[in-house]
């Protein structure tokens, strides 16, 4: 009986360790994608708005040496 309990505990701890690693990887993956994101059709409106601002002259290449 104690041997069986020991096996169960080992399995349980192993499952918890694997679960933690999977959780941590997924958390970091989400974080990374939160920081870096590709622009696709969902961003079409924003992209067009910014490019229109460039085309209209509302935005021009920044000429300053530093940023305020």
């Amino acid at each position, binding site marked *: 009986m104690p041997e069986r309990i020991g096996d169960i505990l080992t399995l349980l701890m192993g499952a918890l360790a694997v679960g933690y*690693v999977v959780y*941590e*990887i997924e958390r*970091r*993956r989400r*974080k*990374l*994608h*939160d*920081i*870096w*994101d*590709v*622009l*696709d*059709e*969902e*961003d*079409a*409106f*924003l*992209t*067009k*708005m*910014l*490019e*229109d*601002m*460039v*085309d209209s*002259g*509302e*935005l*021009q*290449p*920044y*000429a*300053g*040496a*530093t*940023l*305020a």
Partner: protein
Amino acid sequence: MMPKSASGARSTRRPPARANSPSAPIVSPMTNVAVKPSEEPAPPQKTGVSEPSTQTGQAPSQETDEPSGVARFHIFIVDSGWNSAAHRVLVENFALLRNLQKDDPIYVLSPEQSIAFQRRHASRIGRDPIIAVHDMEALDRDGTSGFHGFRLSLGVLRTPQQALQGLQAFARFLVAHRRSTDLEADIRADLRREGLMGAIEIIMNHNTREMGE
């Protein structure tokens, strides 16, 4: 959620994309490199739109050491001015970033423009400074229907060191992939590589590359 718009709605004034450019080697965007301190600050520019330069997507030629060709990227900085570590890092290192990206124009939205931008897209609030990069080659080829660039939400990074690493990774990626023929694949490959490296670190119980907490 942002509204979707018709694809390919772009100005015809933009220069044509370059074709058949060789692919640059892939470099991980998260690897550290040393960066020297930024130059001394200068008086702020009110709106960031002072250069009477061309609107055809060409980088300002008087700022470059060598003749610049057609800009591959349009770089936009949206920063409403939160008193954050990321904001300070961006301000302190902008001169260096600009020198590294002198082949591509950088458009800096004024605080007023950035705030107006974020009022229309509330999900972006608190994530700025945001650096959006439009891949003009992809835009000219496919419009906005598919991949056409990427953005770095620098404001998500909470400490100065994390923000600096993010900014360095951004500059490194742009320089390394400027001639890439498939920027999307390069980005996804790098993100996959970072995910794999993160998994290895978790298993090895190292946290040195942890970002964003």
